[in-house]
């Protein structure tokens, strides 16, 4: 357990340094901010209660006077679930109830808040909208989230390099938190990875209220050979910051969903964003080589 954590930390550090070194040469993107270390135990601060979101639910065991407590504490480490939480009458104890509410609050905020303009512009991206005019429309009209607004399409037409080898763009999707948490590391690392492969990249931008399918229109407008969207996934209670990359070779509006290649589970406790960027660059390299994506491409 400890070995794996240390290893992850070391890899993270090395990759972060590599990314930072190469970054100054990449177009349009500022240097990534370093992520705060997450592996340290919660700090006890005077005059401040400990952060309940730092509790590891695999380790937490609140059952009073268990018959074979050690054996069960051991067994439950195999499940990332809210087990061994005891009870108050037939109801929940207060602490696990608050932990649950905290996790859900993060998920709700990730969905229902917007990514700040400063975060997007900080990455050197310009902003266009889908045909949704609000978060509510976005959530109830997936069809509108798959199309660019008229002004949005016009902006992409005017500002993006024509017929690039790869067109990258970012979208909030179902988690604004995923964009804020991952993009500062993910985007530079991906651009650097593509540069290492000597793959030409178009002008990156941001789509507000976007669904995955909006990449098909982006592909048609820019004439890119490969289109890749980095988009926030529907949050769970384990993490609200999960992001995926959807990649398609010569995407067209109305093409089958099966033609998309997905790299998922990008977040600090899954595939960390800096590593994921390098991996996505490799996948794009393969897509270009095979001239195919999705089920047409065997990874």
């Amino acid at each position: 357990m400890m070995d794996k954590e240390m290893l992850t930390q070391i890899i993270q550090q090395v990759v972060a340094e590599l990314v930072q070194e190469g970054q100054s040469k990449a177009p349009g993107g500022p240097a990534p901010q370093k992520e705060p270390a997450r592996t340290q135990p919660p700090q006890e601060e005077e005059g401040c209660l400990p952060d309940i979101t730092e509790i590891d639910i695999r380790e937490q065991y609140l059952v009073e006077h268990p018959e074979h407590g050690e054996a069960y504490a051991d067994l439950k480490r195999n499940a990332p679930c809210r087990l061994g939480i005891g009870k108050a009458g037939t109801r929940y104890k207060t602490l696990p109830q608050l932990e649950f509410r905290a996790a859900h609050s993060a998920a709700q905020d990730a969905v229902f808040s917007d990514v700040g303009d400063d975060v997007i512009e900080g990455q050197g991206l310009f902003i266009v909208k889908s045909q949704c005019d609000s978060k509510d429309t976005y959530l109830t009209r997936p069809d509108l989230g798959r199309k660019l607004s008229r002004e949005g399409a016009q902006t992409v037409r005017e500002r993006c390099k024509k017929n690039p080898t790869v067109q990258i763009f970012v979208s909030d999707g179902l988690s604004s938190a995923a964009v804020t948490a991952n993009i500062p590391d993910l985007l530079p690392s991906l651009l650097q990875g593509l540069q290492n492969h000597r793959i030409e990249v178009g002008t990156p931008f941001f789509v507000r209220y976007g669904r995955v399918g909006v990449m098909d229109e982006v592909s048609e407008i820019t004439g890119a050979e490969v289109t890749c969207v980095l988009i926030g996934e529907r949050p769970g209670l384990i993490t609200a910051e999960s992001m995926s990359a959807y990649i398609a070779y010569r995407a067209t509006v109305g093409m089958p969903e099966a033609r998309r290649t997905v790299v998922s589970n990008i977040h600090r406790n899954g595939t960390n964003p800096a590593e994921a960027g390098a991996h996505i660059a490799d996948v794009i390299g393969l897509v270009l080589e095979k001239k195919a994506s999705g089920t047409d491409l065997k990874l």
Partner: protein
Amino acid sequence: MILKTKLFGHVYEFKSIREVMAKANEEKSGDKLAGIAAESAEERVAAKVVLANLTLNDLRNSPAVPYEEDEVTRIIQDDVNETIFREFQNMTVAEFREWLLDSNTTSEMIRRASRGITSEIVAGVCKLMSNLDLICGAKKIQVTAHCNTTIGLPGTFSSRLQPNHTTDDPKGILASAMEGFSYGCGDAVLGLNPVDDSVESVARILKMFDEFKNKWEIPTQICVLAHVTTQIAAAEKMGAPLDLVFQSIAGSQMGNEAFGLTGEMLAEGRAAVLSRGTSTGPNVMYFETGQGSELSSEAHNGWDQVTMEARCYGFAKRYQPFLVNTVVGFIGPEYLYDSKQVTRAGLEDHFMGKLTGVPMGCDACYTNHMKTDQNDIENLATLLVAAGCTYLMSIPEGDDCMLMYQCTGYHEIPTLRELFGLRPIPEFDRWLEKMGFSENGKLTSKAGDASVFLSR
């Protein structure tokens, strides 16, 4: 047949029963997405007025998908008892609603009527019911079924134990199953949604469940919720024990095709368990449904999600299921937007299932992109138990780490039982007492201690 009415002097005229049925629905984002919802609150009521005055015969003659084109329609229409239908055919939907709610109309009378009506009739009367009507209508209808034990007996309320895991890790699954049983959950079924739906993996988990059930002599059913053909293959090729065969179903042939499913596959699945399974039967099928799935696969033929959902139950009934539940909030806000819509849909689905004559449960749940939270789902669970809901789901603190949604937790099941004076299935109740987890229908201090199962 009159499709026109006035409201506040304004004339509302509808083109078809399909339009009336869609516009008579309570507000749902899915009907709006389909472009078939009422355009104003008044138009909604006008549609209800027109619907109230249609006869059951009118609705029978207007199936959502034509008989010639659709297997689900054929199954529903062919299974109607014509003698019973003739007794009801001239009733208006308004009269049928009042007959169902009448104090002199018993469960037996409704169960008999169920055999003479189609799913469009079930959906039609549902649209005229208020939420409390749906609760009190459903509460009257008793539906029991037998697999290894009998579900749906008066005075009982059951639960599915759902020990889902992000990687199907056997130890993690067992840890969750043990804890669920220690809270009195799992008398309906111990059922896993697998991550890996290969034949080998499904067979491995079924064997593990069977072993655990036998070792601790737990009077219940086991199931792994893979595709019907995978479960049969697990039994035939790997000797996996099958108590129940699971399948997700839809309300039209095209919707079922999106699940890779035909009626024949269900008949084969049922025959496989009856001839080679580990359970007593005769009810050996487990189905899941949910409003909106037909629209999401563009298989709704322009009809509303309540009617398409009712047709799932009509289809399910053919295969004499042991369990049927709607997964009511799983599909997302484009179909059910917020807690109000999920609550309504949960009560509708439960009522329609019972009126169809299937042992109806509910996965009262929500995803994180809906305007709903755990309080709302606790409310819905309470309303459902008041309505006599056969079973609910149970997972650790309502948080499913694998499906990434939230529903009812292990703690909710005993809480609701004690609130409403209900018990688990009798054999299971006795087993809980034997294990020391409950006494006289109340949890003991030992309940919730899953480590009891690690004594040997």
